[in-house]
């Protein structure tokens, strides 16, 4: 079956949620991935949103992390002190999904500025809760639609959300593993523990390691056991199209 880039990313990310209990999801691809995982590899997965929603059962696919349809019928809606303090900082999140404008080889993220913080070329939205997700989730998955040298950089313009290596370097003991998976249009980068660099662990069908290295702003290491991503199955695609996003809110 044919599939789009969005469908590929959603399916690949959903598979990574196998066996996880709780996921902190943003809107768009992470929500698609979590919703598909409910139907496939992680039926009991509890999706938690920054807005305070735990265990959403929305009637429609949500358009924001605070969409009214996420609240009606949810299992719990918590205040932000409880959500950020007890749930996230308390260590209850297995996987957090994040995006960013820039990522480096250790999985540090920039979502604040392009250029100098004091007089930026481009002012981006900033940290939001990403810094908290990075510091407190057991691991972080990054989904980046575009894989190019503007986003996969040798050096961040600004480090908004630091991985555990930067925390350790400043003498703080990190809680989680930081970014362990980066899913892009070209393949999957992986990393297991503080000290590790992100390495190319899988490519999508038809993509070469050389092409991924070319699109990456640092000397990207390639895993010895580099694999090719299993394409979305007919079953996965059917669930995604018919059950998860029948109105094609995010699937294009």
């Amino acid at each position, binding site marked *: 079956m044919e599939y789009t880039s969005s469908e590929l990313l959603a399916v690949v990310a959903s598979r990574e949620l196998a066996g996880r209990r709780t996921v902190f999801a943003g809107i768009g691809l992470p929500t698609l991935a979590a919703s598909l995982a409910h139907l496939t590899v992680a039926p009991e997965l509890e999706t938690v949103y*920054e807005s305070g929603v735990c265990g959403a059962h929305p009637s429609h696919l949500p358009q924001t*992390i*605070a969409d*009214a349809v996420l609240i009606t019928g949810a299992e719990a*809606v918590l205040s932000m002190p409880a959500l950020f*303090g007890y749930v996230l*900082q308390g260590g209850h999140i297995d996987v957090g999904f994040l995006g960013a404008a820039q990522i480096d080889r250790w999985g540090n993220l920039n979502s604040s500025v392009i250029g100098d913080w004091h007089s930026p070329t481009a002012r981006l939205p900033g940290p939001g809760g990403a*810094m908290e997700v990075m510091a407190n989730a057991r691991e972080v998955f990054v989904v980046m639609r575009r894989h190019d040298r503007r986003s996969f950089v040798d050096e961040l313009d600004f480090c908004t959300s630091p991985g555990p290596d930067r925390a*350790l370097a400043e003498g703080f003991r*990190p809680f989680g593993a930081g970014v362990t998976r980066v899913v892009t249009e070209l393949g999957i980068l992986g990393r297991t523990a503080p000290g590790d660099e992100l390495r190319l662990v899988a490519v999508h069908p038809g993509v070469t390691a050389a092409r991924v290295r070319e699109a990456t702003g640092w000397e990207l290491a390639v895993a010895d056991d580099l694999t090719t991503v299993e394409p979305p199955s007919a079953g996965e695609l059917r669930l995604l199209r018919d059950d998860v996003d029948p109105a094609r809110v995010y699937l294009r």
Partner: protein
Amino acid sequence: MPRSTPDKTTTLREAVAAHVRDGDTVSLEGFTHLIPTAAGHEIIRQGRRDLTLVRMTADIVTDQLLAAGCVRALVSSFVGNSSAGSLGELRRRVEHADPEPLEFEEYSHYGMVCRYLAGAQRLPFYPLHSYAGSDLPRVNPGIRTVTSPYAGERVHVVPPVNPDVTIVHAQRADRAGNTQIWGLTGVQAEAVFAARTAVVVVEEVVADGVVRSDPNRTLIPAHAVDAVVECPRGAHPSFAQGYYDRDNDFYREWSAISAKPDRLRAWLAEWVYGTADHGEYVTKLGEGHWAGLAVGEALSTPVNYGRRL
């Protein structure tokens, strides 16, 4: 034995005139849900200047307050038009000091929450785990560290924020200010408790008995509130759970409106300066528009508080 509750109801015009002064630190909270837009518009109409605006998610109403020249400094953790695009005025002021510079203090979401928690609890600081390794403390001297007197580990801290006035929007309150919120409750209670003065704007001022039938729903008790304003649909273009839905089209439109300074100012002239109050703004949008944001019914199952027999 029952107390007679004080009546703090007033109009938005009077509340802003009485409680928001030039140079004040003003907190407007509401995380996507229940954003106090009508209050922001009234601040614009009354021409307040040199405000320090404290708001976790600086979005459309922030861009409008900036464009109207009300704001000297912004304290925030997310400066974007949700996922719908950019805030044109904010970016012009930060990127080009156009038409004037903007002092900007950047925190993370939980950093802002913790600033309110410290403010509400009259604490000199509040500890959190967010900033270890980030560049943010390098550009924000407000973020510091403390060493634990137990195992000796360091932890980051943020300072309290105590706004001169906090304004929040809620579904309902009684005339004394006992305020009930459902759906996303965000950080509204903490922002109110942290403030020297607090104004609550509500969809409905309800009879005392409605509030008292469910005291756990009261997130802000009367003694923390100075003024209560009934202002239906006062959160548009954001939403009020159970009252009206989010105006997602307007969010998308705002990216285009705010991209051009002239167009933004024309919008303010028409929709804020050109309306005497929020009632006129609501009418101007038209009932057809509101019909598109209408929501159906999904009632909570009542709980029994019990009665002594």
